[in-house]
């Protein structure tokens, strides 16, 4: 019923095509991969936004939006993603399936062609990007970076990651930093663009009712003119197994907030997407803080009422686990101690069988649900492509089903607290 095909369309241009009749839309994406690097991250992040401003055929946003409206309200959205130490930049598009159009439209071909146009044929002046577009989008990017402080939960995780991985590419945010964003010029951005077109691996993705041949033909035509001149530059991934110092480091910041945010960063002792114990890591994370039956939720939130939320999440490509919680300022020590005590319970096997099974069911269920959601499936396959893996969500489900209690406690035992970030209010 669902058929997944991988093929290489051009040198370094790979297509993952998922054929299924489940959805009313087709999802199409194109992603250029670059090593995450403080020097280039902001320019890379800016690029899809500038490209999305106008093409030779549709030179402004109004005419691009009009073209999308004609494709039954299709969308082409800039996407800037961090997958471990790779930065993925490009576009994600969603279009109505031909079957639901009110006329005999071939939406896929038109959509692919429009996406190719946005990627490859920007409106230019003096042999480069239009200055007005670069300046406008640069200022939006700077605003977006500054606005990261508005949402305090994600801000605390961003700051934790910056502090904990300060010397590693992973410490770089997907948008780069404000200073380098503000310094981008139209010329510099054009050079970056040419470099990416020449050297970046390109991941194409399709999910919808069309077969892989039709998709490959549509995308090959759409990418005609991609200058694949240079050597491919594949991003690397480094996993730091252990904490970077003997004692966990505490970073405290004060802002004008009424609720504190406590975030803890752990190294997973090397456990990550490429390792044998990855399924156990997934189950452990769900057991510890990934679900409403997790240790953190039940104890730190429900039993002790220490916080409004407490959860853990994994960065599977980096071997990092982050714990995030919202607490009253005065509860810092109590909350921290309880979060660590619950980790000890996972290590020593102090959890019931129903907790373990609940965690396993949550992981399985999330993976199965991924297959039912176009956007999540795209993100899954992009991640796999970045990691050089071809395991489907279903194959991973089979491995998760086989995880044992011993494997969970073993992987829990590998967690090492590296850095604590605490955001508190201003004293007045």
């Amino acid at each position, binding site marked *: 019923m669902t058929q997944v095909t991988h093929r290489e369309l051009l040198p370094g241009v790979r297509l993952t095509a998922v054929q299924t009749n489940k959805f009313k839309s087709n999802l199409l994406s194109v992603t250029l991969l670059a090593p995450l690097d403080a020097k280039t991250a902001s320019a890379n992040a800016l690029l899809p936004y500038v490209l999305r401003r106008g093409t030779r055929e549709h030179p402004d946003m109004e005419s691009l939006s009009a073209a999308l409206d004609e494709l039954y309200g299709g969308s082409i959205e800039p996407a800037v993603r961090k997958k471990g130490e790779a930065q993925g930049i490009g576009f994600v598009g969603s279009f109505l399936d031909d079957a639901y159009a009110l006329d005999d439209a071939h939406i896929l071909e038109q959509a692919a062609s429009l996406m190719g146009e946005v990627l490859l044929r920007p409106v230019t002046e003096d042999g480069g990007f239009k200055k007005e577009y670069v300046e406008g989008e640069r200022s939006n990017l700077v605003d977006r970076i500054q*606005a990261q402080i508005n949402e305090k939960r994600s801000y605390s995780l961003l700051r934790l990651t910056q502090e904990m991985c300060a010397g590693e590419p992973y410490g770089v945010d997907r948008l780069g930093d404000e200073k380098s964003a503000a310094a981008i010029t139209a010329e510099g951005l054009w050079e970056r663009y040419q470099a990416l077109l020449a050297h970046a691996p390109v991941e194409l993705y399709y999910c919808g009712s069309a077969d892989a041949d039709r998709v490959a033909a549509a995308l090959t035509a759409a990418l005609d003119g991609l200058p694949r001149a240079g050597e491919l530059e594949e991003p690397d991934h480094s996993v730091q197994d252990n904490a970077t110092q003997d004692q966990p480091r505490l970073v405290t910041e004060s802002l004008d907030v009424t609720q504190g945010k406590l975030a803890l960063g752990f190294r997973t002792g090397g456990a990550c997407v490429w390792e044998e114990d990855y399924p156990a890591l997934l189950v452990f994370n769900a057991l510890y803080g990934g679900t409403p039956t997790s240790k953190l939720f039940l104890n730190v939130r429900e039993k002790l009422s220490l916080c409004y939320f407490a959860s853990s999440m994994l960065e599977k490509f980096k071997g990092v686990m982050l714990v995030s919680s919202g607490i009253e300022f005065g509860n810092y020590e109590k909350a921290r101690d309880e979060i660590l005590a619950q980790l000890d319970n996972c290590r020593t096997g102090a959890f019931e069988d129903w907790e373990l099974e*609940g965690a396993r069911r*949550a992981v399985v269920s999330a993976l199965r649900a991924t297959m039912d959601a176009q956007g999540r499936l795209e993100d899954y396959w992009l991640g796999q492509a970045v990691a050089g893996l071809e395991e489907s969500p279903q194959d991973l489900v089979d491995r998760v089903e086989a995880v044992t209690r011993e494997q969970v406690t073993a992987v829990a035992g590998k967690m090492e607290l590296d850095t604590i970030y605490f955001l508190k209010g201003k004293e007045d």
Partner: protein
Amino acid sequence: METKEYTHIGEKLWHTKLDNGLHIYVDVKPEFSKSFAFFATNYGGMDMRFQLNGAWHDTPAGVAHFLEHKMFDTKDGNALQDLAANGASPNAFTSTDITGYYFESTEKFEENLKILLSFVSVPYFTPESVAKEQGIIGQEIRMVEDDPQNQVFYGMLEALYAHNPVRVSIAGTVESIAKITADTLYDCHAAFYNPGNMTLCVCGNVDPEQVREIALEVLPKEGITDIPRDYGEPESEGAFRPETVQSMAVSTPIFQLGWKADPAPKGEEHMRRQFLGELACEAVFGTSTPLYARLYSQGLVNQSFSYGYEAYPQCAMLTVGGESRDPRAVRQAIADEVARIRREGLDPTLFGRIKKGVYGAKVRALNSFENICIGLAQSHFAGEEFFRFPAVFENIGKADVEDVIRRWMTPERTGLSIVLPKEEQA
């Protein structure tokens, strides 16, 4: 029991009404591995004054949301955990006019549905559990009060409305929720959580007959279909005040601009108004309009720009919001564009393509089981037939949209809310 096919959009819907008044809708999707069940009551943050057994009850702000949190407690433990232990992802939300409980699961659907129907219909509150929840929700209220998006939206409601309870925060305040007791919760549950005031909407790989049987087995045999509510005197046409301004820890100013639309009657007209409102927004400042292109290139708005139409009992509004370094200039530019449309009418090409665009987006939204189930429930409470939207949409003409732009988007009906960066942040 009846089954209806909607061939244009490839949907088939099964519907029945039980003797206790509960309406059940099932959208069968055999090709999916997940299923989604949504059990909703026609009761939200704004339903603070209501009649039960002949007597009027006044309840503090925040009860509907408080109740939502407390419903997960059962005599034997916590339903959230029972569902999660089955691998289901359960959750709930309280909006201005609806409280909904739902789960998504890929296995043990029947067992999960029993848990859902049971914990929502059987109340279990103790003074201790209420006191504890006051602590947890107090934290949530603090978090919401730190959230500029939330604050800017309520700022707009406070500008538009003089007294309609839509302007009261759904979560209430730390003070208002302190007045909630176990008895308040039992009263509100008795009034609003009876099957006659609820609907069950299911989407996924399920057997509709089995859904009906589980509902018959678990739910109370009787229900009350009519719970009178009081939202105060009808509001005047104009905005209560033109502007509200607050300062918070944000980097750029954010704004929410609203227009007080006419309250929408129930039935198909309710759905028609929804589309009129959405098309009016698309036509005046939507992302494919010349105005949006101009605002964007002047740096007056950015990608965070979003807009829509919302309708609740005795009130409806058009809204647009986002980040802007000069929200008042955005308001002026929109007012000028409305004046131009008033004189010249809408461009027919523009109208044709936004209609096509909105239609496609609505069909694409049917990919989401959550959208389908919530849409079915909202339509049910509004007296509409959810999947009939293509026909209702088809019949809307350019003149209809011009008419609502003329009548609703006037300066008198406009309310602007601004959140400015605190000086120390600037």
